């Protein structure tokens, strides 16, 4: 997951790397589902299968020093921002070696060294803090950008509106990335928003908006780059609207009684971001199998790593409460 050089679009060699990264996330998420079902993983888990291009395309576009805030659906963002699968898996197993040292869990993944300020289990909770981080960058004259991920459901909560308003008013270097998968848990967009184009909500603050197909990682990358450039230049925050698809349930185990299975199947066949890129790159079956084997091994190794990790001592619970 090396950082690419800064440019407006990705060369083909990088795209192979991108494919690998997306596949790694996919296999990681599938493994998480499997291990959860096997009863090995505690807590509440949300995978981002189908949304890999958003995480990878956006995070590739970031520069060192940029920071992100993530959501309850955080594994992809976390891997894409550079956390090693071992550390992520270890966290899901509640181990000291985890990226939050066992204190956080799936909904609270942090990796501050790599600019991941934390996943947030409160919908919208991270947004004003991204405004604030960007404010700090602006006050100190640092050429850094703060970026928040969030879902379509999050555009209904007051926090979202307040955070965007403040960011635009103060013209801080922030980017707000909507991963619009058209669902908030079981609630379809038509039941949670009276408008069909959620970009309108950012325009209401005069914020520049960019829209992109969230299944096309190249487009995502280019769009994010553009947004980050504007923000970094000091031209104010940008709202990036990515249309994407949640291929699975809201949480692992969700029976999805509310959703048309055929439609999901069809979307999976036609709009899989990994398959789309693979087709574009014309990766042979053989090469793909080799890639798959490679990332699957990394994922498998992460499980081994996690299982061999150290359980915190019970009393460790009383550490890290205060600085």
């Amino acid at each position, binding site marked *: 997951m090396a950082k690419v050089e800064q440019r407006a679009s990705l060369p083909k060699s990088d795209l192979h790397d991108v494919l690998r990264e997306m596949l790694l996330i996919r296999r990681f998420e599938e493994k998480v589902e499997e291990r959860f079902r096997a009863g090995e993983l*505690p*807590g*509440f888990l949300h995978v981002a299968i189908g949304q890999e291009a958003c995480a990878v395309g956006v995070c590739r576009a970031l520069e060192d020093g940029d920071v992100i805030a993530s959501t309850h659906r955080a594994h992809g963002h976390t891997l894409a921002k550079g956390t090693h699968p071992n550390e992520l898996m270890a*966290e899901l197993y*509640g*181990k000291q070696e985890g990226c*939050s040292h*066992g*204190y*956080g*869990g*799936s*909904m*609270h993944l942090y990796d501050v060294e790599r600019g991941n300020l934390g996943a*947030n*289990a*409160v*919908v*919208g*909770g991270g947004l004003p803090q991204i405004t604030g981080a960007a404010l700090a960058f602006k006050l100190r004259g640092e050429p850094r950008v703060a970026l928040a991920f969030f879902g379509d*459901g*999050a555009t*209904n*909560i*007051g*926090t979202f509106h307040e955070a965007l308003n403040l960011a635009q008013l103060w013209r801080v270097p922030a980017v707000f990335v909507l991963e619009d998968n058209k669902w*908030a*848990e*079981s*609630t379809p967009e038509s*039941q*949670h*928003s009276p408008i069909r184009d959620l970009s309108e909500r950012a325009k209401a603050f005069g914020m520049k908006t960019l829209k992109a197909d969230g299944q096309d990682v190249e487009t995502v990358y280019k769009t994010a780059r553009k947004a980050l450039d504007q923000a970094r230049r000091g031209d104010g925050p940008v709202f990036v609207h990515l249309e994407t698809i949640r291929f699975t349930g809201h949480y692992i185990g969700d029976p999805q*009684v*509310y959703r048309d299975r055929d439609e999901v199947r069809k979307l999976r066949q036609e709009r899989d971001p990994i398959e789309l890129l693979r087709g574009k790159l014309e990766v042979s079956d053989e090469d793909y199998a080799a890639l798959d084997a490679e990332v699957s091994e990394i994922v498998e190794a992460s499980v081994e790593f996690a299982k061999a990790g150290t*359980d*915190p*001592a*019970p*009393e*460790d*619970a*009383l550490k890290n*409460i205060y600085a």
Partner: protein
Amino acid sequence: MPELTYREAVRDALARAMRQDDDVFIMGEDIAEMGGSMGVTAGMLDEFGPERVRNTPISEMALAGAAIGAAVQGMRPVAEIMYEDFLTLAAEQIVNQAAKHRYMSGGQVTVPVVFRTQGGAGWSPGAQHAQQLEAWFVHIPGLKVVFASTPEDVRGLLWSAIYDDNPVVFFEHRTLYPIKGDVPQEIEAIPIGKARVHREGEDVTVIATGRLVHESLQAAEEAERDGISVEVVDPRTLQPLDEETLVSSVKKTNRAVVAHEAVTRMGFGAEVASVLQYQAFDWLDAPIERVGAKFSPLPFAPVMEAFVVPHAEDVLAAVKRTVGKA
């Protein structure tokens, strides 16, 4: 006497009220097709339709406020806040609006709204999905606060809450949803403001709420083996508080333990202990013990989580301390 789970008991109260009364409706995030994140309202959409089983966007403030507004117009909405932690997002409406309208208007306004919510540790949800915040609402005049621990209680108290003309914050505990218990064939209102003595005893009174009622009953059994006779009382409604039942129990046993899952510091147990030391001062043979979560956010890793929240053994240890057998 039919047997219901705690989950079914909540649903039964909601459904019966909705059947008998057009003014009652429910609203909340994902309560319709999905039946709520805990499955409490499963099936209700089919029976009552989307107008009365209203999915809301993720906007705790507006959903609480809309429920208040409808209540002032004479409806009896039951609004679900998916996790107690998100009460922090609706607090303005509950605390500044629902609790105070009647008062600020000099009695003109009635606000018959219920805010149902749930929380609780024991399944590693992490620090933002299992807080126990009932104490906050006990501090706010104008609100009633209920926290039921059994299927019978949760059904009868929810019924009372729905038909109460005041705003009620109604706490459920996630780990209690699957527990079973007998309930009367016909629904019976359980009065808000009456504690329940779950078990009589002579040596120590344990006053417990929510999950800790069950932990305390278990601790009581274990204590009995050591020859300690424990009375277990569940206040059930934290506001108004049935001080009389609590105090008279302690006057009988001369010792008290207060137990809840919430953080001990500034938790509901502080209020109970303060009331008891005041009203039963001369009867107390030992300091009142408080059992609650240690002073920490909820950690994710199961071993740490289990360490932070209290269990039967913590209640038992406290019981033993009060009788000098620690």
